[in-house]
């Protein structure tokens, strides 16, 4: 385990160095990455003066939700780059995954170390900026408990979406091409929980409550941070299950991943 971790850091080092080789290109990539978030959020922020609220939430409150989600998704997108289904599908096609099987190292760790998209820092930075911008618009009554819980919320989202990436990557053992529907859950799910959940059609909200429990990742914690009442009358514990939901999703995906590897070893490519 210790050895695997040491190698992971070395593999990360390889990734970072090769990405920083072309400083200017890297810089532009980071800027482009953060602009995506910036422009998308700006389009919402700019129309707020005409509308004042989004389903009763002020711009500051939406920014809180939005920033927290983008920050977490960005971290996930960077750490789990190796499992990005479209990238991983390519690795299967090229046979690069076989090369990983030939090394005497834990496979999962190797996939983590096979790609680390540093330019996602742009996304993470902009997510953080939007989150901080929210603090200038609204006064959040921060308590030590809230501050302590905040990193766990980020952790929950990173695990949850990381789990979706792993599940998507595992599916490519069967399909080779990454399947488009996964994007609905990953990118679509991210966009979905970046906005207050009570604005969605009932069926959509239920889908993302009971089938894919994404509502507990960001919305419920935000209700707690912002001292807002729960419109759906869930038990009072609801805001605090985010890390649990994330970990469970990740564990389930890892189980599926190991099942997928066994399938791959019985059929090959």
């Amino acid at each position, binding site marked *: 385990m210790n*050895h695997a971790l*040491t*190698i992971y850091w*070395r*593999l990360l080092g*390889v990734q970072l*160095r*090769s990405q920083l*080789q072309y400083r200017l290109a890297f810089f532009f990539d980071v800027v482009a990455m953060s602009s995506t978030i910036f422009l998308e959020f700006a389009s919402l922020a700019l129309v707020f003066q005409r509308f004042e609220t989004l389903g009763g939430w002020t711009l500051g409150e939406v920014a809180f939700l939005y920033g927290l989600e983008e920050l977490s998704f960005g971290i996930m997108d960077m750490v789990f780059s190796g499992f990005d289904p479209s990238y991983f599908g390519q690795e299967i096609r*090229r*046979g*690069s995954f*076989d*090369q990983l*099987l*030939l*090394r*005497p*190292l*834990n496979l999962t760790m190797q996939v983590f170390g096979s790609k680390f998209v540093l330019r996602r820092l742009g996304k993470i930075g902009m997510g953080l900026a939007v989150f901080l911008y929210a603090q200038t618009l609204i006064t959040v009554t921060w308590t030590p408990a809230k501050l302590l819980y905040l990193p766990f919320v980020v952790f929950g989202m990173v695990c949850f979406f990381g789990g979706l990436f792993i599940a998507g990557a595992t599916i490519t053992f069967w399909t080779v091409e990454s399947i488009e529907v996964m994007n609905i859950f990953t990118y679509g799910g991210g966009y979905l929980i970046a906005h207050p959940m009570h604005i969605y059609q009932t069926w959509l909200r239920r889908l993302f409550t009971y089938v894919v429990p994404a509502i507990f990742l960001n919305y419920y914690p935000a209700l707690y941070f912002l001292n807002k009442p729960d419109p759906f009358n869930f038990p009072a514990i609801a805001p605090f299950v985010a890390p649990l939901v994330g970990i469970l999703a990740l564990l389930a995906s890892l189980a599926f991943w190991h099942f997928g590897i066994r399938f791959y*070893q*019985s*059929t*090959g490519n």
Partner: protein
Amino acid sequence: MITVQNLQKHFKLNKQYRGAWGSVRTLFSREYEVVKAVDDISFEVARGELVGYLGPNGAGKSTTIKMLTGLLVPSGGELAVNGRLPWRDRQAYVARIGAVFGQRTTLWWDLPVIESLELLQHIYHVPNGRFRQNLADFETMLELKPFLNTPVRSLSLGQRMRADLCAALLHDPDLLFLDEPTIGLDVVAKERIRQFIRHVNRERGTTVLLTTHDLSDVQKLCDRVLIIDRGKLLYDGSLDALQTRFGGRRELVVDLAEPYSDVSVAGATVVARENGRVTYQFTREEIGASELIGRLSQRFRIQDLAVREPDIEATVRRIYEERLLEN
């Protein structure tokens, strides 16, 4: 070293439907056909052997190699390497083997060669002294020095192959798998790699299993070849014996000193005649070369002669195409 008994690998292929909704139908269809990629093959390889593994495309070669390297789990039969089941304990097993798949590299694209090698040193737990020693050896034999500090992406194919060979051997594996190690290389580069493989096999005692399309690789390196086609092992023996059995007709080209009207001779047929030069064809079974030459020299005055052995390349191609080994 390697024991393979009644090894099988069968794939279930879903029936493919064509057309716009074909992919959807394929997904839900339960019909499939079984493809026997490797069908009941047995062989053994002893420590220190250098064996060539041949067969036309799609014969089951790479499926066998994938099972031997632990990438694929067999669907039947037995397979043990050094008493280990390759797929059972993957990490422990692959730590003791080396593999070079000609078309792909195990090195890191953006890293200088030396740093890739150092990374592999850590991955395989190679002690420092041993690493230095091996690197020094391989550096000279493979002439790695000029490009040790070059990123892998800027290497030529031949350089990359040499670096990959070095990478596969740094941890002193007992067994080395080489898949098309000379593909796409020029004659000089091929020769250098062959010399290296021979050296590793003879001096280090590494057992080598070589798959290749280039028969001169096999001719120059392997004492023993296995031939597989359609999942069946068709031949296990020396290349020479194969040649004797199936090698087409030998040819004797004779330059006659005087014009003769009748140049025929018993035991051989005349296939070409041009001015004073006559080409005879004969088979090993019917007559030896020296005897034929003796018969000719009794009847004619000979200026010059040459015996042409049939091309091994052509022989093996004929074996594949005409399925000579199947009964």
